[in-house]
């Protein structure tokens, strides 16, 4: 591990000089390509200019390559950091640093549906949360437009966690909340949620002027069209738990041409067959096993396992504190394994599955030739608490593995000198 760290630091120092043509060679890795259920043992990975050019056994090391010796350790694609507010929230309780929600609590219902609200416009790649999440093995997230007094949260978008201004990838994603959580925003009844959503879709499909009270602005109508109709390619994430509500999502999506993903889905396991048949995926938090409200009476620890067994595609995330602790997701995948989910399915749930769901699997989620080189070398089993990410590679660039938190750690673990700790700048 020490050796690897040294290499990483060396690369980081020389990176600016060699950015134009950087070649990395990862030697002797256990490569989880995510294209096959079995890993490639003792395999090598060649990366040129941020792109994987070869994954194979016994590759030749180019003369100009920076060598990273994996010494048999597991290597995976960078992990999915869930649906989060990374880069759009810094400190949750400080409104000035919070950009992930349109606060419409006091607004009349007729003015509340704003699908044109797009949190990706607020994305700040310089947020301290991004390296803090990244060095634990995560390279992308989906920005969450969160409901606050609005059953339509607005639009988010997948984003890479490389800290660059051009981090956004893929298509916009629409967020809709249904169920008891959102009933205050729909005249007090979840039945009215479907009434409002149906009207919104009708408005967006109509060319006439809606009177007297349209739900959508002209921009909202345009936005809504991205997600509906037979030609829509963008996905809509429905935050929903109760089994009967999930079936309504399926029916509503079928009727209006949404491409739905179920988010939360504490009771999704109850309708696993219907989800499998409709080929609708589920993003699930394996820790959510309590009857937190009456929509989640069926919550259980083996929900991910049941869904997988029924043939439902699943992705794994953290719905508890999924922004600041998005880094906890891999352990949640491990906990799903402890409760019956096959290990490989759990690994897929934090890599290729979510990448496919959001249509970004040509950016991330696999280790294969021509894929962007977003790779993590782990000290051991990436789903266990006993392991850490030893090195994260982003678009072919080895991460310095330094964050605001590692600097705080180093400042306070350094021996105290005559001057106060404020003078220690690790």
């Amino acid at each position, binding site marked *: 591990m020490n050796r690897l760290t040294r290499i990483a630091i060396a690369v980081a120092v020389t990176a600016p000089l060699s950015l134009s043509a950087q070649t990395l060679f990862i030697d002797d890795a256990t490569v989880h390509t995510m294209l096959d259920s079995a890993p490639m043992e003792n395999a090598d990975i060649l990366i040129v200019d941020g792109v994987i050019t070869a994954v194979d056994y016994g590759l030749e090391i180019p003369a100009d390559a920076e060598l990273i010796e994996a010494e048999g350790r597991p290597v995976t694609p960078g992990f999915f950091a869930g649906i989060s507010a990374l880069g759009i929230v*810094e*400190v*949750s*309780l*400080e409104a000035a640093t919070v950009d992930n929600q349109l606060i419409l609590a006091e607004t009349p219902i007729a003015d509340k549906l704003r699908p044109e609200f797009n949190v990706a416009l607020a994305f700040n790649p310089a947020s301290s*949360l991004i390296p803090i999440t990244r060095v634990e093995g995560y390279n992308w997230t989906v920005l969450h437009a969160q409901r606050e007094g609005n059953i339509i949260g607005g639009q988010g978008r997948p984003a890479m966690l490389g800290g660059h201004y051009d981090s956004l990838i893929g298509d916009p994603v629409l967020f809709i909340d249904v169920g008891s959580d959102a009933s205050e925003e729909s005249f007090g009844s979840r039945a009215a949620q479907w009434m409002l959503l149906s009207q919104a879709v009708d408005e967006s499909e109509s060319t006439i002027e809606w009177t007297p009270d349209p739900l959508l602005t002209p921009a909202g109508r345009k936005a809504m069209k991205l997600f509906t109709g037979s030609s829509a390619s963008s996905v809509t994430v429905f935050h929903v738990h109760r089994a009967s509500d999930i079936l309504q999502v399926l029916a509503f999506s079928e009727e209006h041409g949404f491409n739905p993903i179920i988010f939360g889905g504490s009771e999704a396991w*109850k309708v696993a067959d219907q989800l499998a048949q409709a080929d609708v995926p589920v993003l699930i938090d394996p*820790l*959510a*096993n*309590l*009857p*937190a*409200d*009456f929509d*989640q*009476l*069926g919550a259980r620890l083996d929900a991910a396992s049941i869904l997988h067994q029924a043939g439902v595609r699943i992705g794994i995330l953290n719905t*508890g*504190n999924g*922004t*600041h*602790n998005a*880094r*906890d997701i891999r*352990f949640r995948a*491990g*906990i799903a*394994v*402890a409760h019956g989910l096959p290990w490989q399915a759990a690994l897929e749930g934090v890599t290729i599955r979510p990448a496919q769901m959001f249509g970004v699997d040509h950016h991330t989620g696999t280790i294969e030739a021509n894929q962007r080189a977003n790779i993590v070398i782990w000290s051991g089993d990436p*789903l*266990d*608490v*006993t*392991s*850490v990410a030893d090195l994260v590679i982003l678009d072919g660039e080895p991460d310095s593995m330094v964050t605001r*938190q*590692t600097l*705080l*750690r180093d400042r*306070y*673990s350094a021996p105290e000198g005559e001057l106060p700790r404020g003078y220690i700048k690790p």
Partner: protein
Amino acid sequence: MNPKHLFLVSAASALLFSAAIMAADPYASTYQRIPAPPTVIENATILTGTGERLDSASILFADGAVQAVGESVESVRLDYEEIEVVDAQGRWVTPGLIDVHSHLGVYPSPGMVAHSDGNEATAPATPNVWAEHSLWPQDPGFTHALAGGVTSMQLLPGSANLFGGRTVTVKNLPRNSYQAMKFPGAPHGLKMACGENPKRVYGTGKGVTPGTRMGNVAGYRDQWAKAQKYIHDWQQYDELVEAGDTTAKEPERNLGLDTLAGVLTGDIKIHMHCYRADEMLLILDVAKEFGYSVGTFHHGVETYKIADELAEAGVCAAIWSDWWGFKMEAYDGILENVAMTDIPEGSCAIVHSDSSQLIQRLNIEAGKAMTSGRRMGLDITPEHAIRWITYNPAKSLGIEDQTGALEPGKMADVVIWSGNPFSVYTLADRVYLDGAAVYDRFDPALQPVSDFELGQSLEVSP
């Protein structure tokens, strides 16, 4: 009179004073252990909670208590004609886990409006309220925590108030009343809070004091000064009565000051929500000013900055493995907090949950903290890390003579794990409370279900 002097006087005559107002707990524990046969668990890897690890070892318990651990088991078992033998080949045994910070029962599942009983957020100082009077024993969280190996826990009021009220320590056995869960003989605690929450709830939320951190400190000092006067008045009264004065007027009873006086006399332990290093150091000074001991800081995401000072003050730090950033005072949280807080001699690092999900896997939270410590080069063994979730919380709660370690004479609160408890794949196979099996992963008869969860979502035919 110098306040410090006043305290010394009050401490010296605490007995009389206590007799007057700190009378026997009117809501005393009615906890009864479940009768169980003598039991020996064999072939286990045992983490005793005292810092030891025993491989291929046995533990014997009977009459609710640990009788022998390790080599002494062979001779002690001869005392028992019949004994239940559990083969724990390949499995690990630890003391029952203890969560020093939970709101189960006071903020239960389901989290309905009608269930929100954890914060008496109507005044910044409510030392008169007791969390146990809010406690709903049918919270499904209790049985789920049991499946995670938690045998004892402290339930606290929330952190809206400077003085949130009394805490209660329970044994995690589902019962119809909290009194039947109450840990026999555990001291009461007092929940206090630093920082953002009180000033946000009162200053920002209601336009009353405290609206600032200085307002918070004034609020503490004001109450402690009242408590000193209260003690003084009762002492004076006691002295007059003792001298035969039949006209002496009894001071007016004040439930809140009863609690604060109980802290000053050392009968009630402080559990203080406090995030920032500088604020914790300030609170240590407030405690010196009024002559009490802080006990435990909860949620201190910055305890790594003042690990030496906390160890020196004999204060425990009950903290998360990785939570941070949800508010300004949590912005400097780091993954190594537990491991670094644990370094000094005499430290008392505790991994706590404050969550109905994390309480189900304190072992995994401790595992994360251990791994982070190892990553920075600290040598942390499983036999040491287990103390973060067993012995140290027991010490924080004042129940370390009864539970928190596997030693002869202590309560037989025991967990058999499917493997090394610090792996994400490990589950509690069986949990014993006072020697009785109360949970078994493979035996539905030993998997309790709360009244609330019973019969939900029934199907016409199963």
